[in-house]
């Protein structure tokens, strides 16, 4: 293992984060606060409880997930896309690092950042609504697992993208809609029966459901299923990255 190499990449990425710390924190905290003001207070006060949980508290896990997915993807995709774009990737390609080490550096840093942000949003939520966490251990586990999986997914998007537009396309056109439709703001039991079935094809449903279960002990789908799906996604991403580095996919001519 090239530990110095992993550390160099990790530091490089974290330094990039800290250079733009204010922006990285301000935007998500502000949007989350807006969600709480609009959905939690203004609209939420007219909504009934869902599964005995007040609406303001109900949306917290979904909101954290929404931010976690976006942050993980954008951090990791940007991290690997930038050197491709600027040409500095030559150094990474000529360095004695394996794909695992490259991942540990880039995905490790992206995960760190999005977990920090997830916790920050949980803190912000506290300002607006009181909530309790029924299974803190599982909460952290879901948080970490999701951050790692989607940082990996972001890394793949960064490898695949050959323009800044493409870098934005997947988060905007795929992830955000799937999150909104994945039960961030409602329980899928509230949907008509047909849509309840359709929605089960949305992988984000499992993430949000599992995460919400760790807070309130209520879930739309079985928790084991949630865990299994997240792991499955993680393994699929790992397999893709392994293949990409073997074949040089879009990075090595």
């Amino acid at each position, binding site marked *: 293992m090239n530990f110095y190499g992993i550390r160099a990449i990790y530091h490089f990425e974290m*330094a990039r984060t800290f250079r733009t710390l204010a922006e990285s924190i301000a935007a998500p905290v502000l949007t989350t606060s807006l969600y709480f003001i609009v959905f939690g207070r203004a609209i939420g006060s007219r909504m009934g409880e869902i599964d005995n949980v007040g609406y303001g508290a109900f949306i917290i896990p979904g909101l954290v997930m929404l931010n976690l997915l976006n942050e993980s993807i954008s951090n990791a995709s940007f991290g690997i896309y930038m050197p491709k774009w600027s040409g500095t990737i030559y150094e990474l390609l000529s360095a004695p690092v394996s794909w695992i080490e490259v991942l540990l550096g880039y995905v490790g840093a992206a995960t760190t950042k999005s977990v920090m942000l997830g916790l920050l949003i949980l803190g912000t939520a506290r300002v607006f609504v009181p909530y309790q966490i029924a299974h803190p251990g599982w909460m952290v586990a879901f948080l970490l697992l999701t951050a790692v999986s989607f940082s990996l997914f972001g890394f793949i998007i960064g490898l695949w993208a050959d323009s800044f537009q493409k870098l934005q396309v997947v988060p905007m056109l795929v992830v955000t809609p799937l999150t909104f439709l994945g039960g961030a703001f409602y329980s899928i039991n509230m949907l008509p029966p047909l849509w309840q079935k359709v929605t089960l094809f949305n992988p984000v449903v499992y993430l949000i459901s599992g995460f919400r279960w760790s807070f309130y002990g209520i879930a739309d789908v079985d928790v084991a299923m949630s865990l299994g799906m997240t792991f499955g996604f993680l393994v699929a991403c790992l397999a893709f990255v392994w293949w990409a580095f073997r074949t040089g996919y879009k990075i090595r001519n």
Partner: protein
Amino acid sequence: MTIRPTSAHTTTELSAPIISVRGVHKTYAGGFQALRNIDLEIRRGEIFALLGPNGAGKTTLIGIICGIVNPSSGTVVAAGHDIRKDYRAARAAIGLVPQELHTDAFESVWATVRFSRGLFGKAPNPDYLERILRALSLWDKRDAKIMSLSGGMKRRLLIAKALSHEPEILFLDEPSAGVDVELRHDMWRLVRELREQGTTIILTTHYIEEAEDMADRIGVINKGELVVVEDKTALMRKLGKKELALTLRQPLTALPAELNAWPLNLSADGQTLVYTFDSQTEETGIAELLRALNQHGIDFKDLRSSESSLEDIFVSLVQQAKGVKP
């Protein structure tokens, strides 16, 4: 100043080539064949200059050895390690200064050389990095953001990054492009020092005088093929031509027919007669020529001899190759 610290390099015996390229072909994804059947050995501790016109395949070959480009076929062994099977050891031995100025805009000079050293698996060594930055006149700029550096400074920063992990082999892909005369001198002095400390250096340049000055051996590549690989002095001896130019007392309109057998060239104004001969041969034929001229009553007032430069040799090699290829 010493750039290389004391760490001894533990690689294969000294006589073995430090890089050996065997039957390397490269066809890019678009179907363009950039390299054809390249066989090349680089000797330990030499300065090797790779020359060739634009698009010849120099950067591609360097990219393959350094792990940036996948070869379509063939094998490369660097510092005793196969670059694919044992890529860690091979790459750790190599430092690369790319042709293009690829840098991170927002990093500081110091942060980026530290990053490079770590990336190549070396424990931090601030003293060593300081020595490199000083040698490249970048120490005063250590806290500057890279985007605030001039082009020549960026080039030197890339050299510092390449040296940051104490490589045994250094690739310099057109290091003198965009570097002013004084800095070029400093850079070549550094390169010589590195060579004295045992680093093997492979460089490309379009300034042929530089290769003539610096290199121990020279390879010429054209359209993806290695046209020649030779000791610089041997190459200049073998392919170099000497010329003897005679300034005539009386201009000639034509040469006497008896002199047609000689490789002589009369200038357009009939004032100068140029005799070309192989610098290698024992018998230059000068004495006979002068006797023959004398017999025909051709008198001269001045004579000069000159040797062809590496540049002339290079141009003739590349043109020859053009003639051979359709």
